[in-house]
């Protein structure tokens, strides 16, 4: 597995991150040894193995459909970087 320029461009897009010129220069070489380990990982036969998303089996949880207090909206809104009244303010999403 190697990271070519085009792939790195796509990864930045997926991640919503823009690396600096300096970071772009060193990233492929730095992660090279780790990607070599991932090639080893990919070669392991795992036919019929479902995979575990967590180390222990987890069960879904339900509760009674009754109204319970939730976190006060003011407490949440006060952390918003930009707000307008009881709304969080954001740049226009659709032109």
């Amino acid at each position: 597995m190697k990271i070519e320029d085009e792939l790195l461009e796509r990864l930045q897009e997926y991640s919503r991150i823009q690396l600096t010129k300096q970071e772009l220069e060193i990233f492929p070489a730095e992660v090279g040894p780790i990607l070599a380990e991932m090639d080893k990982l990919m070669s392991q036969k795992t036919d019929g193995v479902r995979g575990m998303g967590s180390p222990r089996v987890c069960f879904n949880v339900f509760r009674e459909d009754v109204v319970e207090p939730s976190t006060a909206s003011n407490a949440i809104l006060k952390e918003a970087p930009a707000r307008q009244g009881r709304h969080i303010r954001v740049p226009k999403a659709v032109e």
Partner: protein
Amino acid sequence: MKNLENLTALELGELIRRRAVSCEEAVHHCLELMERREPRLSAFLEISREKALSDAKEMQKRVDAGDQTLSPLAGVPMALSDSICIRDLKTTGGSRMLQNFHPPYSATVWERLKTGGAVLLGKTALDEFGMGVSGETCAFGPARNVWDNRWALDGSVAAVAGGEAFYALGSDGTGALRRSAAMAGVSSLRPTWGTVSRYGVVSGTSSLEQVGVVGRTISDCAQVLALIRGRDHRDSTTSQVQLADERSSMQGMKIGLPDCYFHQEGMDPCIKERVLSAAKQLEGLGAVLFPVELPIVDLILPAYFAIACGEASSNLARYDGIRYGYSANDVENLQELYIQSRSRALGNQIKKYILLGNLFLSEKENCYNKALQVRELVVQGLDNLFDRCDMILSPVVPSIPLPMEEKPSQLLECYRQSAFTALANLAGLPAVTVPCGYHSEGLPISFQLMGKPYGEGKLLTVAETYQQSIGFSKTPGEVGA
């Protein structure tokens, strides 16, 4: 003022209960040490001086009234990693992204400690979102090792090792807590995944991380675990399974020694010698030791890393500059808001984890799914292994990490230094680290015990018996100043 420095948390708790020491005296003791040592250690990001003193006053009233609900650690001053939320108290996760974040809720672990009588001194430094070797990547500067400040430490470990706090909580997502504890001569306990609630803990790697405890002794760690563990309806991954934490006899305890760990390339001979020497001492105390093989050992580390990166990229996608956290305010559209907020506020190391995570999740190779399958094979293999032995003994790190001044690649260092800590994260195993000597370079060395899920009791039996038998030093005292 009484000198409380050489006391364990349990010993101090007993003196407070008997009213031989007051809660305020204990806090003043810690604050005075922090004033002297913090310029060198930088363990704390936030010190709650006035709150600690007022909480100590309130706690003393409960002690004086003979309140039976108080725990054996009531009134003992402690520290919390800045990954653990306390309502309205700044919680940064070690990141500029959250540098002004005040959570609207408190973590379950803090609520349970507070009920038991904990007195908080402040919030400690950590690797950004808990992902690093041992504290180096904290956006506000790393905590330093009291033994040699060329090395960074997780802040919770630095606070306990430096005598500033009697115990602390941290998050063990990539093993940084255990690695730090090993290099600082203090004990640590990582419980079975799902034993302790992660509600209110800043997320990094959900299926790998667990709240861990740092203490001067394993007995201190065990008492803290008793306070914080248990099912939490706010964290659906907490288990209903009862923890088997009763102590048993050391006689005949079966301990496996993974050959592959002790003979791997790059294994520091000094660390190996000290850990094997400790193993011999455990044999002298009644344990039975024998070599074991770990399941697909070459793939444990890459599987753990692929899952860590994948989960980090998913968890950290929430930092979009909109609902909380840093927000770039010189942007023209939504896309730029996302990109500039994240690029400016997330640290260099975390960006690499996110990029790699998106690679492993989205490209056709799909390492993440493969890693989940390897995890299942490892867990199955461990089920067989733990039929033959009660626990595994290993070093904590293969070598002393490079000092900060050499500016190593943190990503590669983290990968390499996770060689022996990754298994517990991947398979959700309980683990303890126990100091067992010193390296020729002067830093402490520890060994690690990993047990079967919910088998904390046997780990604690062995660790406590060892610590009681060797007459260990509880704190480094006035090392260097």
